[in-house]
């Protein structure tokens, strides 16, 4: 056995896995209209079963190659504002994986938001996917 291999040590607790290999996705669909005052663009929910299970996740955009570690990733998305003509813009897309109830996690795709902004139109398809594992809360 190598020095960095498994050693049983009763001085430390550890994290017990609850699930592994789950995935959840949400998409922006080209041609969809939104108002900037409503930052939520898309969401998906998933029942993960166990109360308070912690989340380890990595996320990926269909636009980009690498997976990014963490439960929040940023991407960008192209949109146009009809009143300003055909110009397209790049906006920040926030993608959060978070628990919203005892058993449920939610993936949200959101903009920076604002108040009273103009309508805008998504100009391309994009799917955000998170692969995640959950671990039991050692406190419960």
């Amino acid at each position: 056995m190598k020095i960095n291999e498994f050693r049983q040590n009763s001085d430390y607790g550890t994290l017990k896995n609850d699930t592994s290999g789950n995935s959840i996705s949400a998409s922006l669909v080209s041609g969809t209209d939104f108002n900037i005052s409503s930052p939520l663009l898309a969401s998906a929910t998933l029942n993960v079963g166990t109360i308070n299970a912690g989340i380890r996740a990595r996320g990926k955009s269909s636009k980009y190659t690498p997976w990014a570690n963490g439960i929040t990733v940023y991407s960008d998305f192209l949109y146009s504002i009809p009143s300003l003509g055909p110009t397209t813009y790049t906006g920040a897309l926030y993608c959060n994986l978070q628990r919203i109830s005892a058993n449920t996690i939610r993936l949200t795709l959101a903009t920076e938001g604002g108040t009273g902004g103009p309508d805008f139109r998504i100009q391309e398809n994009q799917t955000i996917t998170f692969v995640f594992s959950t671990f039991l809360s050692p406190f419960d």
Partner: protein
Amino acid sequence: MAATDFIASTTYPIDKISGYQTGSTTVAATSTASPTAAHSLGYKPLYFIKWSTTPTFETSFDEIGVSTLDNLQLTAQTDETTLYLLISNNSASSVTLYYRVIYFMPPDVNLDADETTSALDTYNKNTNFNYTKVFDEDNLGSGNRTIAHNLGYYPQAEVWYERDDGKLLHLVSNQVTASASNPTAEMTTAALILKNNGVTITKWYYRIYVDEN
């Protein structure tokens, strides 16, 4: 025993919880608060933090890097003595926020565990569950880093970083765009790629886990 239940493997170590902490703080309406809590570990621990608005943690949340939808947000930092929290309450009501933190010992620290009085940080083997196995962990100096793992798939990983102000942070948010302006950790089937993207980082910590799918 299910296929995903405990498999004892001496090929890999597992996460070891070297300490933990609980607490609560009340944040006034439309305000921020920066409570601190002493952990007295003597080193900058790697951490996971969860928080809730109820003391029973019936619904609990993870540290979120960015959220434009929620009225409550929490981020954390650690150093050798203290846990630092930054809580933002954008709601119209005062909120009491409860938090639970578990600490891991960094790979460049090798001290005896100090807390032995609770089952929480005492090893308790339960074959109803499997345990995430650490394929590789280390600490690295400043700059962009590429850690080859050559696993042939995209493994799960956790990353923390120490800034030039001495605070240690869990990397929970990432940009997948080409123009990132925060530290990022990208994963390929062959390597974990750490980029500071203009942020002064004095040290990286990472753990790459064996995939159990």
